[in-house]
């Protein structure tokens, strides 16, 4: 179906974006391709150092998966912030990718997990890095004849710290004004590396090179936290819309990153402990 007339067909998975588009009358395609019964794409697999998540896996399944809780708890954090329980029961990570909103809440975590997205058509299969997958708001490299079949990433390092912070106008069913995901490796009070991604501050989710650069080798203290958070704010290129002004978004990026790192410094942040997710 996709191979023959891909451009005229819209895949629908959980439908939590597609149904809204249909209702708003903005869906261009005349036909839907229902993926909801593709049970073979509903999986979470451990594959050596890799975790593979099938395209039909819902947020709820991610949240409940022992494998994700053990090796990629940042994705659990992120999944819990998506919409509400009803949305988490239906929505999929692949759908979040396919929808390609700069405010998508699973995507910053996938950026810092340096995930890869598998795209398959009737006679081809390829994998692209998450950073290359998105071209802009609602635009991806997916060809009309392809489906997203899987997202994969390496297990998080034991002992690494992580966070996903989302700022919305309310506590459920809120679209992010800004969001930030980070994984940080500390040794002896020094930052080995930080991977930091920001949502809703550019046409796609972005990594923050300035913040990551400032973090490398720095002591984790109030000064460095401030410098890193300022770096993130500099890298943000937000717009003004109904959910917030550009100026505010830049300040909020600073706030989110500062608070997240401060929590890690003061021992109240989250940390990867294989087998179970632990604190401090």
């Amino acid at each position, binding site marked *: 179906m996709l191979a023959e007339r891909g451009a005229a067909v819209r895949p629908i998975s959980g439908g939590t974006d597609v149904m809204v588009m249909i209702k708003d009358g903005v869906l261009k395609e005349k036909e839907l391709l229902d993926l909801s019964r593709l049970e073979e794409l509903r999986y979470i697999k451990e594959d050596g150092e890799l975790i593979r998540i099938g395209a039909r896996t819902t947020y709820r399944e991610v949240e409940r998966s022992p494998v994700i809780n053990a090796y990629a708890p940042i994705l659990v954090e992120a999944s819990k912030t998506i919409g509400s329980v009803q949305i988490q029961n239906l929505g999929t990570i692949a759908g979040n990718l396919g929808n390609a909103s700069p405010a998508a809440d699973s995507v910053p975590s996938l950026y810092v997990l340096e995930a890869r997205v598998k795209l398959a058509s009737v006679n081809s299969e390829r994998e692209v890095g998450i950073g290359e997958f998105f071209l802009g708001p609602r635009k991806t490299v997916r060809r009309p004849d392809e489906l997203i079949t899987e997202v994969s990433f390496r297990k998080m390092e034991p002992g690494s710290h992580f966070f996903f912070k989302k700022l919305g106008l309310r*506590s459920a069913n809120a679209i992010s004004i800004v969001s930030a995901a980070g994984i940080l490796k500390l040794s002896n009070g020094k930052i080995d590396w930080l991977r930091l991604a920001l949502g809703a501050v550019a046409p796609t989710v972005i990594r923050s090179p300035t913040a990551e650069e400032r973090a490398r080798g720095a002591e984790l203290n109030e000064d460095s936290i401030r410098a890193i958070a300022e770096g993130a704010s500099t890298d943000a290129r937000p717009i003004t819309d109904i959910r917030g002004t550009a100026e505010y978004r830049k300040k909020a990026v600073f706030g989110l990153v500062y608070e997240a790192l401060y929590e890690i410094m003061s021992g109240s942040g989250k940390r990867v402990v294989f087998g179970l997710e632990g604190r401090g």
Partner: protein
Amino acid sequence: MTQETYELYRYLNRSIPRLDSEQKVRGELKYLTDVYPEGMLHGYVLRSTVAHARILEISTEEAERAPGIRAVLTYKDIPGINGYGAIVPEIPVLAYERVRYYGEPLALIAADSMEQAKAAAEMIKVRLEPLPAVLDVDEAMAEKVKIHDKGNVARHTVVKRGDVSKAEAQAHLVLERTYRTPMQKHMFIEPEGGYAYVDGSGVVHVLAGGQSPYRDKLQISRVLGISPEMIRVKNYPTGGAFGGKDDATVQIHLALLAYRTRKPVRLAWTREESGIAGYHRTASKITIRTAVDREGRLLSNSAKIVLDSGAYQSFGPTILDVSIETINGPYRVPSYLIDAYLVYTNNGIASAFRGFGAPESNFAIESMMNELAAELGIDPVEIRLRNILRTGEEGPFGNVIRNSAGLEEALNRARSSGIWRRANGSGWIKEGVGVAVAIKGVGFGTLPDYPSAAVEVIPEGKVRVMFTNPDYGQGVITGIAQLAAERLQIPVSEIEVINADTMHSPDTGSSSASRTTLTAGSAVVQAIDEALSKLRVEAASSFGASSSEVQYSGGRFMYRDRSVTIYELARRLRQKGRSLRFEATFEVPRYPEPVEGTLEVPHMMYMYGVALVRAGVDALLGKVNVKEVEFYADIGNVINPSIASGQVEGGVVQGLGYATIEEYRYSDDGRPLNINFTTYVVPTARDSPEMYVEFVKSYDELGPYGAKGVGEIGIIPVGAALAEAVYRATGKRIRDLPITPWKLV
């Protein structure tokens, strides 16, 4: 009222479940928009997509010939008056000559299918000459662009007493501040809609969500040019209203389409249509200057109140009155000067919304009281205790305060609350507690108000209670059933309510102004007394006794060792062919004349409330997190504590939305921007703080069994209390709602 008599009630002061909650929980209750009558046509409204324009042409010929089209109506097809509006019938039913807001209806279509209706709408030729959109009240008052030929000020009035400049000259401190509040959307669960049909005898039936069936009926009759007798309106059940269904929404359009096509027609707005064309709360800009002595006692109050009415008036004139009445708070204000304006803009149509002008003015006066307290170094509860009117005193509008003990007690409860000690932020989270008080009149002030109700004793063992104040989720039918049960001394299960249907009930008026308990409650009690006095005579005659010798208790009349139930008496009356229906009209107590310059100020009955809000502010993100709200209220005797608390809690959360995230907005060219739940966000259950609601003991002898009203009190003081909490937390005074994060960083 003593403690003992409280405990004598059998059916009052009791939290019985709502009579319709089981049906609602099971999903069995059908709103009127859930009904799809057989053989119905689909109604559709073609709306303007510009905010302000001269209409050059609307041609419907092609659309009329389109497949499946049964009617295409423009202003030319209106048999009666092309105008409606609760106060002044100036809102065009269908646009004529001018378009004054984005979404204004241009034409109505009835078709066999919705697709056909929409296709036909595309074929209607509309030529408009755009005019500049005026979206700001100051710009409107400059009168450069006239929205109406008569000018942009719909109503201007000055209300005054004493000599303000003299008071200010003698004052220890005079503060002047400008406060603003935004437009707010009702966002009820059921958008505006319903259906209509014409029966064999030519009666036009309109069944649609609404708040005022008899006013709807009257407005429809004027537009159709037929007698109100030929119209029936039913409003029950309605899925939320909050004032947004008080004036007509779909009713007139439905009636026009059914009247023209003689077929059942369904017309239901989508959420987005409701977002575009539904009503909203007036935005306000209030500059207030208040003078106090050293101890914080008010000497004078001046205010310039400007309310944004939008393109037409709807309830604007009386909303302005309530904002005038509210601007002096529940305080002793020796002299005041209130300069009040209701201004036209191209921002949709502002209309009733819970509180009706009170939340707007309350934000100004209560923020001012908090600012004065801070300037003077007086505790914010204390400054209020020094200024509130006490029982027997004359209020600023010449009304004698009959009973204010409740407010004083509420303030004392608030002062001793533990909440003050619980504000303990740390790090970047700053916490503060704020207070504000509210006063709100119950009913229509000095406007004549004669609500009627009826009861019918059914021999099979039920008493049917009929009144028209719609229950749109507030629990009215339950509260009134409890009052009826109490009066009759029979279980609530024997009461059957017929609500909001002009076919069955006399006119009890609208569900608005927190008046339903007073109006329906009093009229029903009176109708029951009427019934009991008639039945008593009947009982006496059967006993061969005089009626004064007959006792009544628990649904039976007794004389010596004999007794007869009201149902048995009803059976006998029915056999004699006599009516079992008893009707009564209540006269709402009021002052004979309004204060000069007003339409309906003052009221005789007031509710009071004190809100305490504890909020945390994330100093880096500017995000306000409301932790806890305590609300002490005087609502008179409480008929159903759980429903009453629910009203306060719901009002508080709606007030928190208003104070933090809700703001209905227009683009620079007058297109509404946030018209659905994705873009117009309201608080969710997760955003609701811990809440504690307490009703202080109170009894108002003007109300049924001492009850007053409750619907509006919760929302009114929330904005000012939250702004004060934020100030205590951060040192920042926010004078324009909502308190969005970007105002705090």
